[in-house]
């Protein structure tokens, strides 16, 4: 599979000092956080909102009804569609820098619980539907947490039924009936799979020079999952995107000439059509990748529609 990249919101530096997170909402709106504000764009690139955040935003996510959550240090701020904000979670001093977050519910009828990547504590934290702390995940290995020299921890949730857990470890359980969490462990050069109870059930990836390996000091740095169940992983130095299936098989690699080679972190998001959005935190712009066949079909449809328009 070949990935084609295109810079969107081109020519615009999104923030002055730092672009830190990106997310795609239920209506394909694009949210980015950086400096001390959050900006929301329509899929066509038109800016819809620009709201100041209480603290520097480090991550962003949407809930199922379109409220935007911004992860900060020690707290998570929620914005409704009108921009009204409230503190959803205020968990200092336990909660540190929130570098990734996601909402999750077992079914559409159940309320969403909150999963948070705490880069200060180097673990994932789970909050219930009332946003009370429940448990920590990944904190009980011998290094007392994930090894994140870059200072960012990232994860994504794979819903049930997407695929079998994969990896090179032995003795893994088949957990296709339940959702699992994939987290990047950069200094260990692998992706790790956890249950919601915090049990490590699998991992894949290793340090090496093959296309499916993770090279350099501390890679992979971030990840997301597409609606089709593909894991998208970002690496730095030089920046590149890799797509794996849930068994750890490499599907595609994109060496990103569109991204700044000095980029230390790439924030990732994916929309309903499986297109990948990459936030270049160094160049402070967004690049969208999609499979070549999908891009060609989209361009062909657009050209066909143009032909249909009467003169």
């Amino acid at each position, binding site marked *: 599979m070949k990935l084609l990249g295109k810079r969107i919101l081109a020519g615009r530096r999104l923030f002055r000092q730092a672009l830190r997170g990106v997310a795609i909402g239920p209506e394909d709106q694009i949210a980015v956080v950086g400096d001390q504000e959050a900006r929301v764009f329509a899929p066509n690139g038109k800016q819809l909102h620009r709201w100041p955040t209480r603290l520097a935003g480090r991550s962003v996510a949407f809930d199922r009804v379109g409220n935007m959550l911004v992860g900060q240090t020690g707290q998570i701020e929620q914005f409704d569609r009108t921009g009204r904000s409230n503190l959803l979670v205020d968990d200092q001093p336990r909660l540190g820098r929130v570098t990734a977050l996601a909402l999750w519910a077992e079914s559409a009828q159940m309320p969403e619980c909150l999963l948070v990547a705490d880069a200060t504590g180097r673990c994932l934290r789970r909050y219930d539907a009332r946003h009370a702390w429940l448990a920590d995940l990944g904190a009980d290995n011998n*290094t007392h947490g994930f090894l994140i*020299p870059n200072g960012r921890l990232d994860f994504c949730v794979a819903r049930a039924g997407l695929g079998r857990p994969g990896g090179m470890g032995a003795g893994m359980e088949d957990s296709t009936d339940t959702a699992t969490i994939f987290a990047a462990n950069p*200094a260990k*050069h692998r992706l790790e799979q956890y249950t919601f109870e915090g049990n490590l059930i699998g991992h894949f990836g290793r340090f090496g020079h093959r296309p499916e390996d993770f090279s350099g*000091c*501390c890679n992979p740095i971030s990840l997301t999952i597409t609606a089709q169940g593909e894991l998208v992983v970002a690496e730095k130095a030089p920046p590149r995107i890799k797509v794996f299936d849930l068994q750890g098989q490499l599907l595609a690699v994109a060496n990103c000439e569109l991204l700044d*080679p000095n*980029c230390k972190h790439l924030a990732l998001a994916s929309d309903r059509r499986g297109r990948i959005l990459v936030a270049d935190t160094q160049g402070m712009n967004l690049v969208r990748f999609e499979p070549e066949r999908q891009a060609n079909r989209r361009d062909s449809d657009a050209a066909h529609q143009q032909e249909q328009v009467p003169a």
Partner: protein
Amino acid sequence: MLARTVRGAGVITLGGAAAYLSRKAEAKGFWFIDPGRCINSQLGATGVDVCEACATSCVLPLSAVRAVNNCAACGRCCICPAYFEVTSPIGPDGLPSQKLCPRDAIGRKAIGEVDPYDPLNNFYEYTIDENLCDGCGRCVMACKEPAGLGSIRLEVRHDRCLSCNRCTIAAACPEDAYLRKPVDT
């Protein structure tokens, strides 16, 4: 006799003045390396060759420049790009088979709760032996962001530096990163 005495007094006076001025000049400044200009540590300079001017241009047999690791900024990674040559073939332990430093000046030891079975599961403290390091800058370049965390940089060791007025390293530095700073700043 008188002329000889006057000549002698003049030589002593001139010599004394020269020594005084030299000491005064020395006391006024010291050499240092600006990490923002040094090509090895300069952000944004990716894909360039390592500059070894500090190691090769000093008048001393072993340069007065040393690589120094800021442990507070160090990530303590297992696969450190300044310790290992990360592009070298992978060894049976899953780690790169070659070290980066040509003089083997960088050492490491596992710290904290050590996992004897999985080196990737440990934190490591990295130290640089200043009796071996010659300031070649390779570790500095390898540690530089974005590949590393930029915790290593080159510094002038003033107990070794002769504080030459016309420093040969400063003359050779392609980026004018080797500067003289007044003592009182």
